[in-house]
């Protein structure tokens, strides 16, 4: 009887969750479709104008102090279940980290490594608190840095990509030049990049990258012979960024990363917040390898 009630409760919860789950994305999809439906702004040479502040940013939200000056700022995560609390297995912040770790490992789109490299991927994943260059305050690099925050597009000359994360800039020539022979042999976090147009899509070809970065959180390493192709497509007031990683030394086939679509930020006062310096002081105090 109790089990039956429990099952019934779980089913109702799942139905409620499904309704919520599928209505929220539908709203977001409608908004995205509306943003795509407007005419695409074009530059003088007829290409889509990639300029703009893409995605959110520059917000002034958050908790405010009360009239006495007291301030309570609580970071939210998934609350502990009664079972977790009862067994004292959960405390503030624990689910936030654990959910993040599970989510990143569960992304079904994984790079397909040659069999002999999976052991290394697993080692790096297990020891990510020490091995992940992101934890050591290093730049995330191309392509892990993702989509830019802001773009300045100078038609026929260059596309300037600006990233909030670590105050990073990239200058992509779109004047038809080939890769620089010296820089493409260098080993850097942003590599040597050149842009060409395939129809309405800007294709950015990147070589000369370091082997120090990761592709993603679960220990996805690569070599310094990695070749990355990024695609920037503006449709209406949306920008889609998508990257493909070729690294035949370690990957069995190119890894096509999940695309990211951002909406043009309509706030004329949207600004890029200066990212403050990073200093790693935690690793020496960590007593487990758990990370989020």
């Amino acid at each position, binding site marked *: 009887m109790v089990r039956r009630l429990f*099952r019934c409760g*779980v089913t109702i919860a*799942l139905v409620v969750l499904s309704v919520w*789950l599928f209505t929220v*994305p539908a709203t977001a999809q409608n908004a995205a479709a509306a943003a795509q439906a407007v005419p695409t702004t074009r530059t003088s040479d007829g290409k889509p104008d990639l300029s703009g502040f893409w995605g959110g940013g520059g*917000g*002034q*939200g*958050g*908790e*405010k*102090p009360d009239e*006495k*000056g*007291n*301030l309570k*700022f*609580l*970071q*939210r*995560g998934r*609350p*502990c279940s009664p079972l977790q*609390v009862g067994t004292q297995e959960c*405390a*503030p*912040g*624990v689910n*936030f*980290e654990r*959910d*993040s*770790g599970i989510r990143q490992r*569960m992304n079904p789109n994984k790079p397909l490594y040659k069999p002999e490299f999976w052991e290394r991927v697993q080692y790096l994943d297990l020891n*990510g*608190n020490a091995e*992940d260059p*992101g*934890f050591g*305050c290093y730049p*995330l690099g191309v392509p892990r840095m993702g989509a830019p925050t802001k773009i300045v597009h100078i038609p026929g000359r260059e596309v300037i990509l600006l990233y909030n994360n670590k105050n990073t800039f990239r200058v992509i020539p779109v004047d038809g030049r080939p890769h620089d022979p010296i820089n493409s042999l260098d080993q850097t976090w942003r590599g040597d990049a050149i842009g060409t147009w395939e129809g309405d899509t800007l294709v950015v070809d990147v070589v000369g990258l370091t082997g120090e970065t990761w592709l993603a*959180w679960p220990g996805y390493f690569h070599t310094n012979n990695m070749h990355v192709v990024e695609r920037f497509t503006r449709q209406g007031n949306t920008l889609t960024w998508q990257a493909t990683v070729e690294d035949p030394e370690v990957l069995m086939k190119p890894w096509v990363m999940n695309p*990211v679509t951002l909406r043009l930020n309509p706030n004329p006062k949207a600004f890029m*917040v200066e*990212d*403050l*310096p*990073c*200093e*790693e*002081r*935690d690793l020496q*105090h*960590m*007593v*487990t*390898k*758990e*990370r*989020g």
Partner: protein
Amino acid sequence: MRRKIYTVFAAAVLLALTAPAFVHHALQAEYDTSKRGEFTGTLTRFALINPHVRWFFDVKKPDGTVLKWEVTAGGPGALRQNGMTRIFKVGDTYRVTYAPARNGSNLGRAVDFHFPDGRVVTLYHEDPNNPNDL
């Protein structure tokens, strides 16, 4: 079979609900969040840095010796977005409650700062027992 379906569904929900994220230090790998410690000390440095804001204190013991203490919070964004980065004054004395580092060093995850004028600033995670935080 049904359990398997629930598990897969729960996993899908989890994936769908969560936004993309970068790297986080796991709070529970470094601090025992079920415990609390407290000290009163003089602020010597307030470091508005990534990945965690840090406060450095001198804590004077009854015998006159001074212990160095360090507490951390989340990223600097929370304080910056609210224009609250200048509320902490080097040289002032604060009573600080914290979740202690598991390795026993003079380090904690900040919970409350009690200011000299009586203000209380809490920079922490939600209380798992508080239904209002659901």
